[in-house]
């Protein structure tokens, strides 16, 4: 907290020591069946965000555990000041178990179950009271200056397939972030046939020291990271090829902010971490108003500093997608629904 840059980043300090650049109250349904109640609970409560996902029921063992792990990662994200789990009661990813996992990681947490409470309306009443209590206790988290050394940047994989001159800009962004002390988690897509356990080091990143972590495995704030020298704070995370599930995985790891190269598809937000979009010319020309910064076909020397500045801005204030009030959710699945 001492190496404050001139253009100050600010964050809330959580009781466990982590820094949050947002102050969300997160409402997580443990199963799709409780998503509607979760949404209504969050409505009208400042700072409250309800996730909607389509999982938690009829999942096979390892797949159900992965869903629970991802939801636990989101619920304990440093940008989240408190988490309310809304369960149904009969689901596979049990709400009580999810709640206990979140609380065990030191997060302020509360639980309400629809069947336990006696229906949707009773659960909504109990949930809104619990959320108000979380909001009140979270209000004490002190705000102060932070530096990149306190933060983790998640980077989506799309830039890895860019032409050399554009890809070089992202390598330079990573180098600058590491030099500034940031932890960087780079998503590396694994084809369906590829090993899900480890990421293959992309040739572009070979010159930078890196370490592999499992998908959606919490890294920010871990003792491992704290002990690492800055140059080796680059983590490679195997990830699905789909972009929204990548964002979710990066957020579950604890990335404070996500950097997304927009090459195809649409800008998309993430519920807990701001997403800073780099519109890659020519593909993203139509989205000039929806991204934080554009990247030319032949970028000049100012391109990498501009992206780092956009990340800093994204830490400080609302991103375009946040201002639109929209985010998307997708959870990586490893087995079919039963």
């Amino acid at each position, binding site marked *: 907290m001492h190496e404050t840059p001139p253009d100050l980043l600010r964050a809330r300090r959580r009781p466990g020591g982590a820094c949050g650049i947002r102050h969300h109250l997160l409402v997580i349904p443990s199963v799709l069946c409780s998503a509607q109640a979760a949404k209504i609970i969050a409505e009208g409560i400042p700072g409250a965000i309800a996730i909607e996902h389509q999982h938690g029921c009829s999942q096979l063992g390892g797949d159900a555990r992965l869903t629970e792990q991802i939801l636990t990662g989101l619920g304990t994200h440093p940008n989240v000041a408190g988490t309310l789990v809304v369960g*149904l*009661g009969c689901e596979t990813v049990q709400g009580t178990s999810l709640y206990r996992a979140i609380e065990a990681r030191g997060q302020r947490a509360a639980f309400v179950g629809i069947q336990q409470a*006696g229906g949707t309306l009773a659960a909504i009443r109990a949930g809104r009271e619990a959320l108000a209590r979380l909001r009140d206790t979270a209000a004490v988290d002190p705000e102060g200056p932070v530096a990149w050394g306190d933060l983790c940047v998640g980077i989506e994989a799309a830039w890895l397939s860019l032409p050399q001159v554009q890809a070089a800009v992202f390598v330079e962004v990573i180098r600058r972030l590491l030099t500034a002390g940031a932890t960087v988690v780079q998503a590396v897509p694994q084809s369906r046939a590829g090993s899900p356990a480890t990421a293959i080091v992309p040739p572009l990143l070979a010159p930078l020291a890196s370490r592999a972590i499992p998908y959606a495995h919490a890294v920010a704030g871990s003792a491992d990271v704290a002990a690492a020298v800055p140059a080796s704070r680059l983590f490679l995370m195997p990830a699905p*090829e*789909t972009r929204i599930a990548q964002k979710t995985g990066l957020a579950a790891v604890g990335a404070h902010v996500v950097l997304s190269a927009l090459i195809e598809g649409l800008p998309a937000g993430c519920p807990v971490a701001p997403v800073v979009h780099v519109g890659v010319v020519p593909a993203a020309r*139509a989205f000039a108003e929806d991204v934080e910064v554009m990247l030319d076909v032949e970028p000049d020397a100012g391109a990498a500093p501009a992206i780092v500045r956009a990340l800093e801005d994204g830490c400080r204030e609302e991103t375009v997608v946040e201002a639109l009030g929209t985010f998307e959710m997708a959870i990586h699945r490893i087995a079919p629904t039963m």
Partner: protein
Amino acid sequence: MDAIPLFRRGNGRWGTRNHVLVMPLVAAASGVARAIAHGTGATWVEHDYEPEPDDLAQNVARVSRTFVGFATNPNVAAVLLVADTARHASALDAVRAEGQRADLVVVAESGGLRGAIRSGRARLVPLLAKAAAAARERAPVGALMLGTECGGSDALSGITANPALGDASDLLVDAGGTVILAETTELIGAEHLLARRAVNPAVADAIYRIIHRYEAVVRAHGEDIRGANPAPGNIEGGLTTIEEKSLGAAKKGGTRPIHEVIEYAVRPGARGLVIMDTPGNDVEQMVGMTAAGCQIAAFTTGRGTPTGSPIIPVIKIATNSHTAARMRDNIDVDAGLILDGRETLRSMGQRIFDKILAVAWGELTKAEQLGHREFSVSRYPFAALGPAAR
């Protein structure tokens, strides 16, 4: 009663509701779809389907027919599709080919997210006007296609609510209607009883085939189905094995001959009782039956499952009076009265049938009143089996 007022669609099908639907064709368009529909009176869905370059053809086909079937369900008067790029917009032609009134917003061609929301709002206006002009007309009861489902089952599901719903299913089939029995993983162990009621050996074989296919895929993943099914809540509710759950679950479909076995989200080619191959997951199953054309669903529950649908009314039937009383905000019919001796299976079956007709006519279900509109895209589940999946 042999006729009820329903909405007649241009393609000759009948709807119990009159929705305008905003439907994203990729996950990233979900936020735009929500923003377009917000405050307009249109309904919408959100989902997490992201197309992948190396997606299996079976998965692409399954997801695509789910979207097209959902968008052309007769409860939908008109639909606005939202795609990210023109490449993912082919559903428009398929939807129109079904005689559905439809329009499309392609976000990448609309000046970005804000432009797409503006454009979508403008395109929604004539679709809403078209829906507003629709009126109910006399329709035969046999025009109804009922989806049957059980979720959060307990030890009473197979004793009260499911057999009573089975009686109602028989009444609808006898009136010329169609009933879908689904959730294959919850028919495991009851296949021999169902196969006996198949109208011919090919249908009987198909019943065994879909059961064996799900069993094989669980084995191929090296997993045990217990935990997913029966789920923790089922076990707490007194169900001990998947077979026990299945013998109760199969009763929802009644006792009439089984005419056909259809794949997920495929429209039945026959009237009467049919089986659809779906996961047991409540919402994926409901979406599959809705994409097949069900205009209404009956859903039995022991533990109390609150889910509904964005476009079809879902009637909740409790297996026991405790859940019915405790979750009265969610439950439409209390089949626990059978245990008290205040109703018989037969009288409860008639009561459920009457409720189906009343709801088809326009009475709102509890799930509709609470705004429950869950949606989930079912992925092709049999990839691990390779070519053996057929």
